[in-house]
């Protein structure tokens, strides 16, 4: 489903990813952990197509196709979703309006009928339950004046609406208290399916207690230095990252 091969990425003069290779199969949940500055968020952004990241080598294939040639909106329509670490405020733009515009852009791409306002409302109401949000959420400006937890829940709501094939969660757990973390994790778990893969980018093992991954990878100095099962996360929690530095992928 997702094949990243020897990916090299620069930001300005600085090389961030130095030959990252990763394969995620259909319906799998992978977690990427690693110290600050290891390139975790860069990977997330490159997958979504954020401007400012230069891919200098390697490839990313998504459902067998070259992902790197696609514009960000095309990737989204193909089913790539990025839950932002710092969701942006879009003042004055109604949350419903943006969700509906996004969903209809994706549906149009899939050759499905666009939803009208009433149909969309029906559709989104069910999705709200997934993240335990009430309807008042819909009429507010996109992330405008949202608390940290609300912003993250809003990201999961967007994911629930867009029903992506690959969801990349960039430090979705950061800045969340334990209750909000539980709600977000619950939402993600409800959205797990055989047809949907996840890439969880996180600092802490805590998130993985709630969302149990199939595989855990450790990213250090721009490449994956160790991969393993969920137990790897626990080991990292105890030993830190230093012992892995300089090692090559297992």
């Amino acid at each position, binding site marked *: 489903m997702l094949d990243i091969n020897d990916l090299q990425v620069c930001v300005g003069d600085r090389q961030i990813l130095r030959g990252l290779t990763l394969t995620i199969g259909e319906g799998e949940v992978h977690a990427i952990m690693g110290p600050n500055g290891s390139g975790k968020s860069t990977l997330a952004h490159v997958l*979504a*197509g*954020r*401007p*400012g990241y230069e891919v200098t080598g390697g490839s990313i294939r998504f459902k067998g196709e070259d992902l790197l040639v696609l*514009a*960000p*909106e095309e*990737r*989204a*329509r193909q089913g790539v*979703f*990025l839950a*932002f670490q710092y*969701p*942006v*405020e*879009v*003042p*004055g*733009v*109604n949350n419903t*309006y*943006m969700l509906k*515009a*996004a*969903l209809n*852009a*994706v549906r149009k*791409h899939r050759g499905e009928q666009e939803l009208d306002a009433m149909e969309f409302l029906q559709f989104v109401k069910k999705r709200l339950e997934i993240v335990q949000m009430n309807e008042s959420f819909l009429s507010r*400006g*996109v992330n405008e004046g949202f608390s940290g937890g609300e912003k993250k829940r809003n990201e999961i709501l*967007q994911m629930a609406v*867009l029903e992506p094939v690959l969801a990349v969660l960039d430090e979705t757990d950061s800045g969340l208290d334990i209750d909000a973390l539980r709600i977000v994790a619950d939402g993600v778990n409800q959205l797990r399916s055989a047809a949907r893969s996840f890439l969880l980018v996180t600092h802490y093992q805590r998130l993985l207690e709630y969302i149990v991954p199939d595989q855990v990878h450790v990213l250090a100095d721009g490449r994956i230095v160790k991969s393993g099962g969920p137990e790897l996360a626990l080991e990292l929690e105890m030993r830190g990252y230093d012992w892995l530095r300089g090692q090559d992928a297992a």
Partner: protein
Amino acid sequence: MASDNQHIEDLVRKDYAAGFFTELETDTVAPGLSEEVIRFISAKKQEPEWLLEWRLAAYREWLRMTPPNWARVKHAPIDFQAISYYSAPKSRKDAPKSLDEVDPKLLETYAKLGIPLREQEMLAGVAVDAVFDSVSVATTFKDRLAKAGVIFCSFSEAVREYPELVRQYLGTVVPVGDNYYAALNSAVFTDGSFCFVPKGVRCPMELSTYFRINAANTGQFERTLIIAEAGSHVSYLEGCTAPRRDENQLHAAVVELVALDDARIKYSTVQNWYPGDAEGRGGIYNFVTKRGECRGARSSISWTQVETGSAITWKYPSCVLRGDDSVGEFYSVALTNHRQQADTGTKMIHLGRNTRSTIISKGISAGHGQNAYRGLVRIAATAAGARNHTQCDSLLLGSRCGAHTLPCIEVRNPSAKVEHEATTSRISEDQLFYCQSRGIGTEDAVNMIVNGFCREVFRELPMEFAVEAQKLLGVSLEGAVG
């Protein structure tokens, strides 16, 4: 980043969708301005002697004045002798009594612009006083308005049918010598709209006028006068668009509003005149004087404008808050793209006690557009307890445009409260990427962000106008960021 700017420019570069020209035979006076021309206009319109004298007085004032040079706009000097001051569609001697009598070509033009009068008449419940060049050719819904006692007609008709009302109010808000362009308008205006809402009447429908400039080299000098008697309410919509022309066309309208005790006037404008091409050639010069006077206690006047057109906009819809407890509002969206220049804002003149005013201005600049907010809040010594809140936000798209905020505050009463907030921002790449990463294309994303930026103003517009305004912004910006 160069590539981003290029992308922004590609997006901004979008041709004016309403650029076409209707061929109509016109009854046009030779270019030039003199007392004879004014006498000709007045005679052509069979005006009473007092109005001719009023025009001539304005003309004499105008001769003594010089064009204003304080605005942040640049243009070559205007040759007022090169302008033709009268142009009327040639048709039957009698004005048409229904749409059936209107020149079919004219109706076609409206249809192209998406303003089907018939449908409006049937579906929208909006009375339309359509101004094509200088003479009103279609007026609808008169009966229903007449039943309510509301007078809504062309200015010429008002002069003929209600001369005393016109005489009583004309020039009392914008005196003939108020400013250079107002004086010119007073001397040579050819037509416009007149509305009178009697005591205690709530106008049963939104009133609207579509202005359209067509014949070459014919300045448009519209005159609008709206009077709301004690306790009455009226909402007036003005929208316009013009066909593509190569030469600059001067438009110098005057709008006067009078609100008596407890009256409310809401005046909404969506303006989309031809802005010139990407190099700034052609396009309308829109030098307009709009002012309302809250003459009575507890009266209110609210201006809402969405300005996307014109090569140059010079416009300051203002409120004179004379009545105690009266309220003035100004909500504005001004967008400049390509080489457009806008110097716009408002004046809130607080004279009465406990008068309140609100100013919300949203300026959007793209391409090489220059956008200035110019505002005056004046609290007179008599205006005890007056309050004003001003918010000016500017949004920049690309790196070659400009936004300027020029607020002026004069307070002569110590009990007044005046607040001013201003922000300038760019559409951030983060916002754009956020929208894109949800599947929304760049243009739609820009459109969405800009519309969000303008939301506080759009929500003041009547529903159907708000939809139109959003579309208009979309068309005007198609092309603006990356």
